[in-house]
């Protein structure tokens, strides 16, 4: 089990970080989704060694059942990371509306790096002008 998980986590993390470093919004969302997968697998790997699914069946020794606590944690984490991804996508779509497609094509520039004048101008009415 563990070698499989270790490899999977390593691969997901590496590619996730690589995509995050792309300095573009869209690959960053993909990268974050990969990191969420990796995190879930780490939590699961921290659990007890598993022989069977954590469902009580008469006649099966309970000690053999997988540790249900990390599983429950990961289950909610999956749903939450979905909500986070949706939120990122919504900001992505909303941002594209305001700043236009140029913004998506251009490299990531945080607002700190931008010329504040242009940010203000864009927020004030740049989005409308493009429509």
């Amino acid at each position, binding site marked *: *089990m*563990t*070698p*499989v*998980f*270790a*490899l*999977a*986590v*390593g*691969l*997901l*993390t*590496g*590619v996730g970080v*690589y*995509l995050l*470093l792309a300095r*573009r919004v*869209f690959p*960053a969302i993909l990268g974050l989704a*990969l990191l969420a*997968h990796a995190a879930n*697998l*780490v939590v*699961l*790997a921290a*659990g*007890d060694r598993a022989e069977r*699914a*954590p*469902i*009580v069946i008469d006649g099966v020794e*309970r000690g053999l059942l*997988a*540790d*249900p*606590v990390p*599983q*429950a944690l990961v*289950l*909610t984490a*999956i*749903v*939450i990371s*979905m*909500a*986070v991804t*949706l*939120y990122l*996508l919504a900001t992505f*779509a*909303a941002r*594209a509306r305001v700043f*236009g497609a140029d913004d998506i094509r251009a490299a990531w520039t*945080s607002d700190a*790096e931008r010329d504040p004048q242009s940010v203000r101008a864009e927020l004030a009415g740049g*989005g*409308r002008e493009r*429509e």
Partner: protein
Amino acid sequence: MSAAAALWATLLVVAPALAALAIFLGRLPPRTASVWGAGASAVSLAAAAALLWQRSIGVATVWVGSPTLRLDVSWRLDVSTLALALLVAAIGLLVLQYAGSYFHGDRRAGRTIALLAAFEAAMLGLILADNLLLLYVFWELTGLCSFFLISSDRSKGQAGLRAASHALLVTVAGGLSMLVGLLYLIAQTDTASLAALLGLELEPAVATLALALILPAVLTKSAQVPTHFWLPGAMAAPTPVSAYLHSATMVKAGVILLLFFYPVLGGSPLWTWGLLPLGAATCVWGSVRALAQSDIKLLMAWSTVSQLGLITLTIGLGTDIAIRAAILHVFAHAVFKAGLFLTVGGVDHAAHSRSLHDLGGLWRRAPQLAVAAAILAGSMAGIPPLAGFLSKELILKKAMMAELWVHGLAVGAIVLGSVGTVAYSSRFFFEVFTGQARSASARAAERPSVGLLLAPLALAGSTLLAGPAAPWVDRVFLEPVAFAMVGRPLEVKALSLWYGINAALLLSVLIVSTGYLVDKWLGLRFLKEQAPRWWHGSELFDSLMAASQSIGELVVRALAGGSPRAYLAIAAACGLLPGLVLLPGLSEIDWISAEPAGATIVATLAVLLAFLVAAVRPLPRVLILTAIGFAVAMLFRLANGPDLMLTQLLVEVLVTIFFALALWALPTGPREVAGERERPRRWGRVLLASAAGVGAASWVAALSRSTPDTAVATYVREVAPAIAKGDNLVNVVLTDVRSVDTLMETIVVVLGTLGVVALLKGRERDDRGGAAGGAETASPPPRGLLPGLARAILPIGALFALVLLLKGHNAPGGGFVAGLSLGVTAMLGFAAFGPSRLGRRSRASLSGVAILGAGLMLATGAIGWASGDPFLTQLHGEVALFGLSLPVHTTTIFDVGVMLAVAGGIGAAGLAFWTTAAGSAARGGRS
């Protein structure tokens, strides 16, 4: 301790605070405000007097918040605290009465008077507080009130604000150190009661450490060198405020606290070593600086510095009889300094100037003020038979009785400081009130109103009477107060004006004559307003603040420079690279026995990830991401997590749909989302990513060598199913064992999806304004097979979800999975019938469903609560129905809530995305 005493003590503290509130809320003008404030002070005064009269001594507990946290409101009533309360309330009464006349005509000054009353309440609370934490709260409240008071004169503008910030920052910094000291004392002695603490015998090391922590607070509050600079700055405040701040409150808080702690900390060697040199330096320096001032208010401010140095020095002598002398001087100084400041205010009002260069001959215009000033300044200079002479004589005597080195230092500082005091006292009186006026405004001085004369005269009267009545003062006031402070009876001679001719008396005569001659000899010629720049405490402090600010900016720039790449590098270095340390562990893993199924999945994952990096167009990337999600779901299956697998599969389906919608919602469609072809510094990226990957893998590998703590797992496996009446352990954990956690997480999901709705709603409104016709009419309803198919599939989807929900407690499924599958069903519905058929109202109702779900979960929690168990205790029972007994669990209701929250949230977000995408497609001419 009787309940009545507790009530009286509370009234004592609260009355001025209530007056402050009334003034503030009623926006009362100064005259009325002054009546309220003085009235409240009178109530406090009466309460203190009544408590003293009844000899109410002990600890009065008003309210106990938490015995374990030692939070309570309790007052320490004894002769010393009540006498101090009497002083604070009496001077508060006079100052507040005076303020009414002083501020007459200034509409906004009501606020200042309210603050003064609040300040009085904080000071009274500080004096009476028994609980050390409560004491700290009042301590900081006095600092906070003084901040607003010092900055309350708006004509001073930035200068006033700067002075107020200095006072606040310096004293709060000291206060924080005291908080640590008090907590240390509480931890060491296991009591938070000051009264109980004073009865204990502390180990010398404990006492010294506690004192070292408390001293910064005391020394900053009482403006000792080198933190004294805030006090002269604080005279930016209106004069009545200065009068109160410099006499009975604020600066006195420090020395009063020292007096309180003397019985328990006074034995530490740090007591004398810490207090005496600083007090001596402050005493002399304050005196020297006061002599250099031409502004009489600044002169008084520096004089306060000097006098507080004198008191600190005396306390630093560290003997019971020195404490007695210090107590007397605390009271004497409070009376004459309050009076002198109020006199300065009267002079300012009459002659419209506070400069020695302008004033002179004022006794002709304001003879009463001149009399008061003569008495008060005489008391400050230590002229017999005034109160100041009594206390200074006592201090001199005690200092001369001390050990050798202490003796030299103390007596030297007292003599130097006192010579200066006599000199500036004589200068103040003679230059202001005698001789000829030096300016037209002083010549045309108005007569001060009665309201401005009352308080100085009253204070002068009491300082005059104290001398002849010395034996009475000793018996009624000083001896019992000193006894209460020190905690043991003192063997001393009774206080008297005349002890016969002795060294102290001769020294006094020498001091007074020298001081007078120094003033006459120096004259006004040597006035020098500013100390050398390098010596100016407030300038130094400002540069210190500026330096710390630039350090802070440097740190911010280094850690949060706005570059995402830097953030990631830091995060990767902190979180993942330490995993490299665990790298050697990788060799110990049994790689061979890895399951073939697992190896296949990981190989697939690797290929998919490679494709993900290589692909440039967004839609293929999304599909590859979906496939990766499926691979992860397979890994969950491998780890024996059927619930996880189900959840992951459904989530992947949903996320794929949402990605597609988001891309279609772009103004130019998905084609325009460029990849990252042109990349500078690509190798750096690869290096960082590989390091992160290897680091993370090492962490997980290290987990395999650890032995997990199985206590919780065993509990859930063995015990929980019986309690929660369920066989699916994951569901049991989610709905019962950790249901509070689940509640929170579901709320996070709801908030996230509602956030999506909110983000896209604004955009949609833009669209409707911008694009002719708008999105909803422009997109034609979908045609073809889909609507028919959907009609058949939708009910099946809903039914499937219901089955998953109900079976979930014993088999794979449950609220999350059911909610997700309902969400998928809903997305199919949107695809089949188009968002225009559903419209805005259904989005509102979908959000409503999500909130309803969360509400249902909360309601389930309340059921357990109502039956007396902790929040979210799930109940299990049976209900007889038609002769059958059906099991009923609140966990089912809880899970229904989860399902509704998740499904409603996804539905609302999906509809928002769909509407935006459809609008975008219509506007762009795409379909």
